[in-house]
């Protein structure tokens, strides 16, 4: 049962990821990315990492991609012609698909036997969230505080860059 769900979800994930790259219209690409994020959340859930799955939904699906959709709508990208140079031709698509197929075949061939499931043996039960939180706020304290610096840099950078010289707004 779990194996079937896993393969179903991974198939969706690969399909959505390919759609992100190959769909011509920006909106379709962003919405495929959203689908990909939802599927990833499902995969995390299957691994027993409920916290990661919910954070994936809150941060990526609920915030980062809202920003992407907003940009696509603000710029009305869809009416503009797709840039032909960056768009790969048919042979490129075909070879990429072949490569993906080969990768899948390789995984199927060398994947662990069905008894262990695709996750390679029994999944370790996730530690309680409290344990995880304490770990984050004591041993990985430096990384945690550095995250805030990273966020600060991102925010300041965007504010500065989105401003034209002499622009009031």
């Amino acid at each position, binding site marked *: 049962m779990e194996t079937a769900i896993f393969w179903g979800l991974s198939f969706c994930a690969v399909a959505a990821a390919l759609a992100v790259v190959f769909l011509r219209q920006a909106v379709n690409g962003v919405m495929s990315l959203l689908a990909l994020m939802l599927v990833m959340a499902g995969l995390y859930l299957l691994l027993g990492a*409920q*916290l990661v799955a919910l954070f994936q*939904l809150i941060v990526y699906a*609920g915030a980062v991609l*809202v920003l992407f959709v907003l940009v696509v709508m603000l710029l009305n990208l869809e009416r503009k012609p797709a840039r032909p140079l960056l768009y790969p031709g048919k042979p490129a698509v075909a070879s990429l698909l072949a490569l993906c197929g080969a990768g899948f075949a390789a995984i199927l061939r060398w994947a662990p036997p069905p008894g262990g499931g695709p996750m390679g043996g029994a999944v370790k039960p996730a530690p309680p969230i409290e344990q995880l939180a304490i770990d984050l706020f004591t041993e990985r304290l430096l990384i945690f505080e550095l995250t805030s610096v990273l966020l600060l840099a991102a925010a300041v950078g965007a504010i500065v860059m989105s401003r034209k010289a002499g622009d009031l707004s």
Partner: protein
Amino acid sequence: MKAEIGLVWRLLEVILFFAVIMGLVAYMTLMERRFLGFFQVRMGPNRVGPQGLLQPIADGIKLLFKEDLTVSHARRFYFTLAPIISLVAILACFAAIPMSGRFHVADLSLALLYIMAFSSLGVYGVLLGGWSSGNKYSLLGGLRGAAQMVSYEIPLALALVGVVVLSGSLSMTEIVQAQEGRWFILRQPLGFLIFLTAVSAETGRTPFDLVECENELVAGYQTEYSSMKFGLFYMAEYAHVLLASCLATHLYLGGWNGPLLPPLAWFGIKSFLVFFFFIWVRATFPRLRYDQLMSLSWKALMPLALANLLITAALVVYPPFG
């Protein structure tokens, strides 16, 4: 065999839960219209059935038989998808709301995060609905609505963190149990006010209904919608208000705790009172301007919510009375 029977019962219970939620959403529209009528010294809808009790059913049937309009240069796929996203995102949140200690879909240990995750997906309904209609009022309404929803999500979440600091748990059941002696509204009065303000802005109700502000934007992102697609947006709005009432009850008003009456009754009474409060606010306050709305969230509510959170945490770490 025994396990299978238990499973079937469980699923029937989930279906019953869902039916109760849908029934509440339908009859909340009637309650709101009747009460608004009384606030304005008129009767409200009272013709269909005794006291207008069949009105929601009549409305539903009428909407189902309306012509299904899609303007010619709308993006059809997203135009249809948007109301579905709106409704699904809100209704899915109810899985984490127990109506009493036992009547629930699942007792999730991460209930609050689950609700945050799904309710934040609702913004796609507004954005896509506004953008796909191919109408400038819709687009502007959608953008405004999205900016409003994300702006108020931050003070809302910060208020929720205050509750988590007090309860030390993300599970609804444990949060309710933590309030058995003293309701959190007494320990978080400021947090409660921030929660109520932010949540009415999230639901887009008066005084924060800038999303569909008639005199500027016709009907905002819903302008081109008709028939049951409009109906889904309408249901999503009331489901959101219901969710807000249930959350206020569970997080601040002691949930289903109460003397004498059964838990389900207490839950119903408290949620109804919170819902009545929302109607009252709608009948009383005029609409804000958009710049007022945005500065209220960023310049007032967010610093206040952060201060509230830090003070709460300090009081939890160093309790003043022992």
